[in-house]
C-alpha cells in the first residue's frame, strides 16, 4: 500500500504496530461518540467504522505477507569473528604506522624550524 516508502520488512511491521494503535484510538472514538449525550452522529461513526475495518484489513494483509515471506532463520552459519580479529590487528598496525609517521613529521618540522 505505501510500499514506496516502506522498503524493509522491519518498517512494515512497525507500521502494523502503529495501525493497531490507530485502530484502538478509533474504537475509543466510536465509543465516546456513542456515549454522546446528544446522541451519536451517524456520519462520524460511519467514517470511523469504515476506517477501522480498512485498517484491520491492512493489518491482516501485511501480516500475512510478512509471515509468508519470512525466511528460515539459519543461525550463524558463517561466523566472522576471526576476520574481525584480523581487522583489529590491522587497525593496530595502522595506528602504529600513523604514530611513526607523525613522529617523522614532527622531526621534519623541528628541523625546518631550526633552519
Amino acid at each position, binding site marked *: 500500500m505505501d510500499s514506496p516508502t516502506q522498503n524493509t520488512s*522491519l518498517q512494515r511491521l*512497525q507500521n502494523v*504496530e*502503529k495501525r*493497531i*494503535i*490507530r485502530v*484502538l*484510538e478509533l*474504537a*475509543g*472514538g*466510536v*465509543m*465516546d461518540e*456513542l*456515549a454522546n*449525550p446528544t446522541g451519536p452522529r451517524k456520519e462520524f461513526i460511519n467514517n470511523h467504522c469504515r476506517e477501522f475495518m480498512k485498517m484491520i484489513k491492512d493489518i491482516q494483509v501485511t501480516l500475512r505477507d510478512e509471515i509468508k515471506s519470512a525466511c528460515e532463520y539459519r*543461525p*550463524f552459519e558463517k*561466523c566472522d*569473528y*576471526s576476520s*574481525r*580479529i*584480523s581487522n*583489529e*590487528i590491522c587497525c*593496530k*598496525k595502522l*595506528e*602504529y604506522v600513523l*604514530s*611513526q609517521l607523525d*613522529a617523522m613529521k614532527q622531526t621534519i618540522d623541528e628541523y625546518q624550524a631550526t633552519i
Partner: protein
Amino acid sequence: MDGNLEISLDKLPIKRLESIEENGVERYPSDSSYDEKRVSLIRRIDFAWALEDDEERERKKRQKKSSKDASATWQWQSMVENLQLAHQELSVIIDLINTVDANDAVTVAGMTRPKPLLNEVLSDLAVSAATKLQCYRQLGKYFKQSAKALEEQIAREARFYGALIRLQQNWKVKRQRLASAASSSEGFIIDLFDNSLYDSAAMCRPSSLSTIRVDHDSAGMLAINLPPNSCRSLHFGFLGVHSADIPKELGKIRTRGSVEQCTREREKESVSDDEYIKETHTLLREVHQSIFDDQVFEMLNREAFNQSIGVNVTGIRENYLQLSIGQGNTLFISLVPSSKGDDQDAANTQDSESAIVPLDSFDNVKLEEGKHGTSKRKWGFPNRTSCEIYLQQIVHEHAFVKAKDKPNLSGTRVSGQSGKDGPGLLGHFCLSLAHRIFSNRVLVELENVVCRVPYLHLMTHPTWHSQTSSWTIFLKVPQSILHAESQSLKSDFQNMKDAVKSQFRTKVVVNDDRINVEGDGAPNVVSLFKRSSENISSVNKYECDLADLPVIILLQAASQVICWLHEEALMVGIKTNRDFLCLTFELEQGDTVSLVAHVNPEDIKGGITWWLVMEDGSTDDWKLQMDMYDGASEYRKFLGHLTLDVLYSTLMDLVSLCGGGRNH
C-alpha cells in the same frame, strides 16, 4: 350452588413439545411434581362465583346501609373494607409463613409483576440508557488509554529492538527463553565465542566473558553491564627498557571503552541513540579483543613449557611470563586490565622491571655520534608495540585461520606446535626478536662505517624473512672520472665501459646471529702467491662476528679501491702489481712507488687512509709495506683521507711518472 355448570376440558397428560430451537433441539415442559399438580388444580377452580356473591351481598348491604345512613358512615366504609381486605391478605401470608415454618413444601405458583406505571417505564428506560452510555464512555476511555500505553510501549521497544538489530549486524545475538519472571529482559545474550576455530581442541574453553547479557536500563533502552576491570589486554615489553611512547598509546586507546564512562554517558540525556549504540559496539569490540588476548596468553603459556627451540622461560607469575632470548635480552608478556589509564600500567611495568632506562626506541634512527659510547648495548630494541602486534598476528594466523584460507606467507610460515623438531610459535617469535636486535646492532656498525667514507653507500634489502637481514655496500666511482675517461679514449668507448667496473659491491647477510660478508673486487688469493697480475676479481666470502665487522668492511672497500685503480692503470697501459692493499708501480732502475691503504675503524674522519711509499730496488721481498719500519730504504708519505677523484688524479700522476713513453 345453582347456576350453570361449567365444564373445562383438560388436555391429555402426555408430553407435548413446547418448543424447538434452531439447531433442532426439542424442548419439553418439565415434569411437575405432585404438589405442583395439586396447586395447579386448585388454581383452576374458579372461585369467582363465591367472590361475586360475596361482593353482591356486600354491595347490597352497603347500598342498604348507604341509603340508610349515607352521610354518616360513607367516608369510613371504604377504609373498613380496605382493612378487611388487608386482613384477609395478612391471614393468607401468616398461613404461608406458618407452612414454611413447618417445613412443608411450598411452591410459588406464580407472581404477577405489578403492572408498571407509565412514569416508571420511562424512568427505567432512562436509567438503562444512562447506564449504557456510561459503559460506552468507560469503554471509550479504556480504549484510548490502552492506545496510549501501547504507543509508549511500542516506542520503547522500537528503541530497544532497533539497537539490538544494529548490534546483531556485527555480533551473534542469541535468545534464551527465561521462565523466571524476575528478569525484566527477554533473555537476549550476545555470544562472543568463536566456534569456527582452526585448532578447536586447544581453544574449546569459552571464557566467562563470552556470553554477555543484554539488559534494559531505566528508560527501557538496551544496556550492557560489565563488571569493571573485566577486560584484559596483552602487554609486551623488554626487561630493562621503558618505552617512551607508552602513555601516548594508552591514552588514545584505553579511554574509549571503560565501563564507568559508559554509564556516565548514559546518564546524560544529550547522547543520541546512534552514539550510544556506537559506544556499546566499541565496548563489545573491547571485550572480544580481550577474549582473544586471553587465548593468546594461554597458548603462549602452553607453548612455553613445550620445550621448543628458542624459548627459555626465566620467570612466571600470575598473568606474567618472562623469557630470555639470548645475549642477555629478556622479554616479558603479561595480561593487564585495560580499563585504567596510564598510571596503573606504568605502575605495572615498574613492578615487573628491575631497571628502567628511558629509551627512544624508534628503529633506524641515525645515531648521533655522541651517544655512541655509553648506551651501545641498549640501542636497537624493536618497538614494543610492533612486537605485540606481531605476536598477536602470528598466533591468530596459526590458530584461527583455517588451512585453506591461509594467505601465502613465504617467509613467515610457522610450523605450529611441532614440539621437538623445529621451533613452535613462541620459539619462532623469540628467534625473530633475537635476530632483530642483533641485526639492529649490525646496522649501527655498518652505518658508522659508511657515513664516514664518502664513496661508500649503504642499501638495505628487505628479505621478507623474519630471521634474515641483508645489506649491500656500494663503492661507486664518481661520474666525473668515468666521463673524463670516456672522453679521452673515444675509440674504445664500448670496451672500456664494459671493462672497467664502476661499482663494487659488498654484501652483508645476517642469518639469526651469523654474519656473512661477501664482496667482489678482492684479489684472488692464488694469484697473489703467484704474483701474476691476472685480472681475476673473485668474490670473497667469509663469516665474521660483530666486533670485526667494521674492519672487514673497510678492508673490503680498500681492496676494491685498489682493484679499481689497478684496472685504471691497466687501461692506460701501465703494468702494476697489486697486493691486497697496495698498488705498486715500477720506476726505472727498479725503484717502486706504492700506493698503500691503511684501515682504521676507530678513525672518525674516515676509515681509510693512504700512504705513498717509495722504495729503491734493493728490497726483494714483497711484503706489506706497513710492516716495514726500515727507514733507510724507503720513503713514506702520508696522504691522508682521499676521495676517489684525488686518488684517480694521483694515479694519473704516478702513471705519467712511471713512463711517458709507455702510453699509447
